[in-house]
């Protein structure tokens, strides 16, 4: 049999096998009612005259509301619980079928609460706001909803409906004898599962298989196999097939000792594996040792042995150490110490050394680096000083860089009307490379002053912002820049306002006798229209006062249509090119857990239908 004929047979084999691989989940709750509705958009169930079983009781109620996402179950109205000769009644029943706990509430001379189900459990059940908002009219406004008389929820919170009718945008369409109404929470089960068999014109036949084994708090292992068959594709230039295997296992000997093994393999010729042991000595001390082997494509594999430890000595600070040794005499190490003194002074000291092989000539890159950082922050100002040292032993190059940062936190004056801040950064660099010695420095000072909105009239406000910056350096590429922004807002009528913004920026470069610079100005206006919840839009224009030219205009309009459908458009007009640059038109349906969008983009002349998960 030729290879090509084998492929459909393999597909049929997997198709026949798949129900066995995808083992069915146990049923959590069966709901039988005169009317049941499930919203796909919101993952919520509403039902009337419903019966179900809970903790060996047969429960009947007038109404039921279930929010699957938050796993909230709420039955109310004429609640009756029957078990052999026992009959209990109440007005409300909050329950969790997975934990087998429930709370039956009756309103008589007082509020009476009775625990149902697992007697030993604490009942933390309460009715939340989601249930207040859950109603049949909300479900009927869903883009997709189902109605039926029998729903089944399994332990994975997947919902199945029997003899259900599908409603699409409120219109009754086809029915299903049995239909999976929701995807559940995708909780994994022990065993092999076939995740996917698919065919695409770019990747060929794709198969994904995974194996999971989990023993609570003891062992956890997951292995995934991805297979791609490219030989079925015409003109495919790469490998005929590709296999990827990824595996990860963790064994917990006890709360403080764990062992892990990970491995990855690709049929292209690369693989790696790592074995690690983690020991928690106390809440303050933790140690990990690991062995790693990595085999890249077309290169020799290399093995590393690592050790890392972290000691948290509270007021004496935090010390961490990382050390790795690789075959061929390679070393990576790092040590750091961090502490806080007098609640406001932070201190960090770190040092690292690396010796790594470069190229195939037996050369090594050897770098030593270290740094100290000391910072102090108060209500009024913050001060930070750094010293950074990098010593390249291979290139015989030493860089040292001290820095000093001083900032005055924003402070208000004139009764909070004005706010000002200032900060300064000084950096010094010193580089020694053989006979070459270089040093330079730079200093940058920034000042900012802004006002809160000043109401000239009840519906007319102004605010200003001034920024100044001075940059000085050893090479003399100094500059001074300044900016001024004024912003005005005026409400015209209810839901309509106009805003204007003018800014001027200037940058002057000074070097010896030469002064050069640029100045730019911009004036823009925006008209905002928001008369109701259904209509929201704005139009903006920008103008260059320096050259007396109009630049661009943007229009943005959003209109709510009906049943959560919305129209949105964005237009951009270029006055300089005298043409419409782009028009984007959207028709959007908000549907709870997803959004359906019909999009037209004039720039790319594309019409798109997008289904966006939320």
């Amino acid at each position, binding site marked *: 049999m030729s290879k*090509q*004929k084998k*492929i*459909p047979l393999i*597909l*049929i084999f997997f*198709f026949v096998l798949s129900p066995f691989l995808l083992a069915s989940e146990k049923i959590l709750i069966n709901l039988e009612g*005169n*009317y049941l509705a499930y919203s796909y958009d919101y993952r919520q169930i509403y039902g*009337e005259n419903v019966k179900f079983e809970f903790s060996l009781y047969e429960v009947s109620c*007038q*109404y039921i509301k279930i929010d699957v996402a938050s796993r909230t179950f709420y039955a*109310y*109205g*004429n609640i009756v619980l029957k078990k052999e000769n026992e009959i209990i009644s109440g*007005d*409300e029943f909050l329950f969790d079928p997975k934990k087998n706990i429930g709370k039956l509430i009756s*309103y*008589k*001379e*007082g*509020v009476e609460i009775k625990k149902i189900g697992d007697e030993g459990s604490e009942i933390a059940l309460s*009715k939340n706001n989601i249930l207040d908002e859950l109603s*049949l*009219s909300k479900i009927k406004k869903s883009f997709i909803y189902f*109605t*039926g*008389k029998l729903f089944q929820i399994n332990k994975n919170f997947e919902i199945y409906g029997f*003899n*259900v*009718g*599908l409603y699409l945008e409120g219109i*009754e*369409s*086809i*029915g*299903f*004898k*049995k*239909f999976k109404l929701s995807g559940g929470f995708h909780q994994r089960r022990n065993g092999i599962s076939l995740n996917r068999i698919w*065919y695409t014109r770019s990747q060929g036949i794709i198969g994904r298989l995974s194996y999971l084994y989990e023993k609570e708090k003891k062992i956890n292992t997951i292995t995934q196999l991805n297979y791609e068959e490219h030989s*079925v594709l015409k003109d495919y230039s790469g490998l005929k097939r590709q296999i990827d295997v990824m595996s990860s296992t963790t064994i917990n000997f006890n709360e403080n000792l764990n062992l892990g093994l990970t491995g990855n393999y690709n049929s292209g010729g690369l693989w790696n594996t790592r074995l690690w042991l983690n020991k928690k000595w106390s809440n303050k001390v933790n140690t990990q040792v690991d062995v790693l082997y990595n085999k890249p494509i077309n290169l020799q594999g290399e093995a590393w042995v690592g050790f890392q430890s972290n000691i948290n000595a509270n007021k004496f600070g935090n010390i961490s150490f990382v050390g790795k040794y690789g075959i061929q005499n390679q070393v990576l190490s790092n040590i750091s110490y961090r502490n806080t003194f007098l609640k406001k002074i932070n201190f960090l000291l770190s040092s690292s050394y690396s010796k790594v092989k470069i190229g195939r000539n037996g050369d090594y890159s050897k770098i030593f680096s270290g740094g100290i950082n000391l910072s102090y922050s108060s209500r009024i100002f913050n001060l930070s000083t750094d010293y950074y040292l990098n010593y390249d032993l291979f290139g015989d190059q030493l860089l040292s860089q001290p820095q000093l940062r001083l900032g005055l936190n924003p402070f208000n004056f004139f009764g909070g009307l004005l706010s000002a801040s200032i900060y300064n950064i000084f950096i010094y660099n010193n580089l020694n490379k053989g006979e070459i010695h270089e040093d330079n420095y730079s200093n940058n000072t920034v000042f900012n002053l802004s006002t809160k909105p000043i109401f000239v009239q009840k519906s007319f406000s102004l605010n200003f912002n001034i920024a100044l910056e001075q940059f000085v350096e050893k090479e003399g590429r100094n500059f001074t820049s300044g900016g001024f922004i004024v912003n005005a807002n005026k409400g015209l009528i209810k839901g309509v306002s106009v805003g204007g913004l003018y800014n001027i920026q200037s940058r002057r470069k000074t070097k010896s006798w030469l002064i050069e610079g640029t100045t730019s100005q911009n004036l823009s206006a925006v008209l905002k229209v928001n008369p109701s919840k259904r209509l929201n839009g704005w139009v903006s224009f920008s103008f260059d006062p320096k050259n007396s030219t109009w630049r661009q205009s943007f229009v943005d309009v959003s209109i709510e249509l009906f049943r959560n459908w919305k129209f949105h458009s964005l237009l951009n007009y270029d006055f300089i090119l005298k043409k419409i640059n782009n028009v984007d038109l959207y028709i959007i349906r908000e549907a709870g857990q997803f959004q359906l969008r019909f999009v037209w983009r004039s720039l790319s002349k594309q019409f798109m239908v997008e289904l966006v998960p939320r």
Partner: protein
Amino acid sequence: MKRNIIIVILLMLSSFFGSCITLRPKHIFPPDNQVEGIHLCKGMEDSGDLLKPVDIQSDFTSKDDHINCFIKLKDVSIKIRLRWKWYSPDKKMFRDTGDIIVNQNEEYLGVVTAYDMLQLTPESKNEGQWTVVVFMNDKFIGRKTFQVRPLKLS
């Protein structure tokens, strides 16, 4: 080759959908829940035939001398009995309206609005979480909880 793949996929789809799709779904009659909403509010606007809740909230202070529980029903065509029960933070019944007859003439009413008012007495200790439940024809139809907080002295 592609033909074989298409045949296999069509076989899969036909075996799946053929067993579950029915083109004429069983029509289920819409339910009869008449409750449109229950709200707690400070005031009530009485313009025209229907009442409208004003200042809907679930947090009140001991300064608020009364709290309204408003209910809106739809499609009422028979005589109904409404009843409000108010429970204080110690879970004891504070007020029971008894049955209040609505639509005595059994006319069809598209919308029915009604409310009950809780009077807070300044001399009693009102702070804590209160509960109000509403019954229609002896059947529990809704509950609201609200907080009464002590008045902050500035």
